[in-house]
């Protein structure tokens, strides 16, 4: 085979390979959605995190502002210690509250941050004081049934 055609075909092959790499990196992966790349860490202790996992999204007003860096059981307070990597371009006030939320009924769990009104901002390594753990469906249903039973017995008592 002619040298130049050989080089051309190999060149096309290598370029195709790199094109596939770019497709994987930008269209399939999340390289483009990296933000500024610089993050700072916030810590929050929840009494229950449900199904929250590492790399779960941290959202504020529904917009992605960071990701869960690590989830650890705190043996002193018997709570789940969640470390979050927040993009440095987003600053949150000191009295921001964090809660474990679910997208949809069966969707993935994420942390929702709700900004407060404090003048001072949270810094790297700071702890979020106002937290709300995950809603456990079984407990919710149990409470609902309990209330229902109470209501009906109260109604019966009123009839008598």
């Amino acid at each position, binding site marked *: 085979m002619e040298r130049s055609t050989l080089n051309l075909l190999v060149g*096309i*092959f290598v370029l195709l390979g790199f094109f596939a*790499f770019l497709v994987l990196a930008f269209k399939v992966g*999340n390289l483009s959605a990296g933000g500024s790349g610089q993050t700072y860490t916030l810590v929050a202790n929840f009494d229950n995190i449900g199904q929250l996992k590492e790399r779960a999204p941290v959202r504020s007003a529904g917009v992605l502002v960071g990701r869960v860096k690590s989830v650890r059981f705190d043996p002193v307070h018997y709570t789940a210690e969640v470390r979050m990597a927040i993009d440095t371009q987003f600053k949150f006030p000191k009295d921001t509250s964090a809660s474990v939320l679910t997208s949809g009924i069966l969707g993935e769990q994420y942390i929702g941050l709700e900004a407060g009104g404090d003048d001072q901002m949270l810094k790297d390594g700071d702890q979020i004081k106002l937290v709300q753990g995950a809603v456990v469906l079984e407990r919710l249903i149990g409470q609902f049934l309990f209330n229902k039973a109470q209501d009906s017995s109260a109604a019966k008592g009123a009839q008598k």
Partner: protein
Amino acid sequence: MVLESTLRNIRLVGDGTLKIVERIGATVVFLGLTLTQSATSFRRFDLVIREIFYAGVQSLIIIMVSGLFVGMVLGLQGRETLQNYGSEQSVGVLVALSLVRELGPVVAALLFASRAGSAITAEIGLMKATEQLSAMEMMAINPMARVVAPRFWGGVISMPLLAMLFSAMGIIGGFLVAVVLIGVDDGAFWSQMQAAVDFRHDIANGIIKSLVFGIAVSAIATFEGYEASPTAEGVYGATTRTVVS
């Protein structure tokens, strides 16, 4: 009597195991030898380009077509199952993660071994059978540097590119079936995929994996060819061993 035959059988097992270990060891030694003789391949890179053509470019069709169909099957079956749980948009995540992490590198390596690896083995084995390798040595040309190393590097360079093409074609195949034919939401398909696939954890690891497979397949293919008995039957056995092991 019984004891003796039992002992003999145990010895057979031991012998088989030792042979396998010896073969792995010889392959690794051969790989090391190839690496020390690789300088020529990079000084005369046109040799490697020729091998990339034979190993990579000529595998393109089979890799891309299989990737497309694997992706289509994943898209179709994934949607069928996920539909029961009302989360058919996640089919993009399923297709992308399974392809990028596992199927891409593994299936591409299998195809590569059976198409390019066996060709390399047959070529080197036939060179040996027709005493071309000895002729080279007579002319003071090291066949390791001139024949083996360029083929090895051609395979190593081609393999990750082929695996990435396989994954990309598979995702396109999944997209075609799930979105274009069946009608899963386009935006949800891509956005859920992007949310779930991490560049470093999933894509970079897949590439590293395919690179390792490329090194293994190329080393085994060149080794089997180089060590084949110089007969037609020997070459036949060597190509079989390349694909099987």
